[in-house]
């Protein structure tokens, strides 16, 4: 089982490096960079579980982010619950939303573009509801009273948030590694690659995709909960807006879908790019997203396997309409298929 061991070692090394960085780095700027990079990583990992490994592209992943964020906020502000206790509620709520949306979408056989559209539609519905309903604070959003203390899951220095995110990111890495080396992961990827073939081999696509959606939603909800704790504020646009959805999918795609380290690489690259942009162009409205959008287009055009895919020797397959046989057969040695 050397593959699993290699992954485990890699994850351990990653945790070590980041933890050391968290304690070695002193400046707020540096720590904030690490924090935001980890935040982007968590979202990309969440999306990757469903999109990269499950093959279901969600264009409305903010749906789960916003659910986690609002539950985290409302539990504390309206419910008086402690931040640490609110966290499992937020993550759980996001998972439940994943369960419901997934059940609905997969029960009716939505896939591909239809699935992407339906997730987008649900995110929009939630956004409008958050805008219109009272207990979410409406358009004004919700603010968390600033009370910096570890018991309150609020930290004076970004270091605390870095460690909080590191916990979630590590868990996401572990889950991703598990997908790479488990029967469930094999089933999920089989469904992704060819659902009919998977069914013929005894795999139940509905159940498998549903579980992936719940996991993906839960991790995205965790990112939402982090946001609320770190910035003490949430509103419908941030919670359920397109920007959040796009950031999640972009990190996974740029880094390499369906890989362990893709989301980490992609999120880091994108965040570095965003910082660079900010330094070069200041806070021009829209410049960041113009660059993100361009990156998405360019990656899909020229580097569809993302950064992680660059090192892999696999050739990009082209499925032609005659069902999979390659147009040119490789030279055959006698007797060798």
């Amino acid at each position, binding site marked *: *089982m050397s593959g*699993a061991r290699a992954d485990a070692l890699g994850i351990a090394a990653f945790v070590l490096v980041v933890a050391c960085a968290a304690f070695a780095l002193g400046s707020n700027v540096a720590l904030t960079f690490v924090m935001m990079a980890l935040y982007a990583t968590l979202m990309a990992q969440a999306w990757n579980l469903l999109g990269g490994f499950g093959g279901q592209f969600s264009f409305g992943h903010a749906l789960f982010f916003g659910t986690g964020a609002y539950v985290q906020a409302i539990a504390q502000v309206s419910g008086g619950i402690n931040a640490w206790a609110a966290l499992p509620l937020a993550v759980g709520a996001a998972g439940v939303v994943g369960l419901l949306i997934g059940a609905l979408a997969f029960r009716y056989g939505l896939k591909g573009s239809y699935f992407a559209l339906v997730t987008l539609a649900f995110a929009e519905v939630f956004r409008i509801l958050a805008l219109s309903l009272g207990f979410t604070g409406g358009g004004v959003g919700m603010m968390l009273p600033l009370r910096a203390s570890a018991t309150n899951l609020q930290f004076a220095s970004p270091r605390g948030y870095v460690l909080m995110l590191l916990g979630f990111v590590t868990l996401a890495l572990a889950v991703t590694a598990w997908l790479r*080396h*488990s*029967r469930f992961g*094999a*089933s999920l*990827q*089989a469904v992704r*690659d*060819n659902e*009919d*073939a*998977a*069914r*013929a*081999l*005894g*795999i*139940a*696509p509905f159940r498998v995709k549903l579980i992936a959606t719940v996991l993906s939603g839960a991790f995205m909800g965790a990112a939402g909960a982090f946001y609320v704790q770190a910035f003490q504020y949430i509103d419908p646009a941030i919670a359920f807006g397109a920007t959040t959805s796009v950031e999640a999918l972009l990190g996974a795609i740029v880094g390499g879908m*369906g890989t362990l380290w893709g989301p980490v690489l992609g999120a880091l690259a994108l965040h570095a790019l965003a910082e660079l942009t900010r330094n070069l162009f200041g806070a021009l409205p829209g410049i960041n997203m113009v660059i993100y959008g361009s990156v998405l287009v360019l990656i899909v055009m020229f580097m569809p396997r993302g950064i992680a895919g660059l090192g892999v020797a*696999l*050739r990009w*397959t082209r*499925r032609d309409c*005659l*069902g*999979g*046989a*390659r147009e040119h*057969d*490789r030279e*055959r040695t*006698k*007797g*060798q*298929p």
Partner: protein
Amino acid sequence: MTEPLLHVDKLSITFGGLKAVDGVSLSLQRGTLAALIGPNGAGKTTLFAGVSGFLRPGSGRVVFNGHDITGRAPHLNARAGMTRTFQIVQPFAAQTVRENIAVGAHLHIAGRAAALREAELVAERVGLAAQLDKPASDLTVAGRKRLELARALATRPQLLLLDEVLAGLNPHEISEMIPVVRGLAASGVTVLMIEHVMQAVMNLAQHVWVLAQGRLIAEGAPTDVTRNAAVIEAYLGHGAAERLRKGALR
């Protein structure tokens, strides 16, 4: 007489507005290697789809191992021991040969390492041992057919529905595949194969069913069936049987 492993009872499947399968009945005994033949468009693959649960039959029954499984979902049938392959090969293109076969192995094996080991063993049986670490997309047509077969084998089926596993292979590849298929039956797997390659049918099949325009027009031993006038007409057209007979007499 022992109960048949598979019993299809007056199965009808309407597909795209056409009655693609019309009142087909057949009984397959355990341990046999049987073939389903017929001209193109006869409804053979549709029959497979209906039996294995990919299509819901309009009427009729499918009984497998004594249980009525009519219209049951394919993955449940696979778990019960009925696995089908596809006429147009469906590899998990982005995964290696080993990983592909392991998916099948996982039906009965929970552990990843054990499933991968099983995949190696199965690959050896079908002659894919040298390709284990290649991505499935890199295989030739013949290789993909073997992979399709290997993946299905790894599920340890009682009944294997092979859909044109020899299509697209050259004569050399076919002659290599035939012993593999024969070996399956020898190992206790009941095989029902859709096939156009008559050489294979004559060589392998103990019993043949002939489908034409959705209906069963003949059944029996391969030599009998191929001499059946109705069968000849189905393949070669109206009057062909008579012409052949006359030609043989001259």
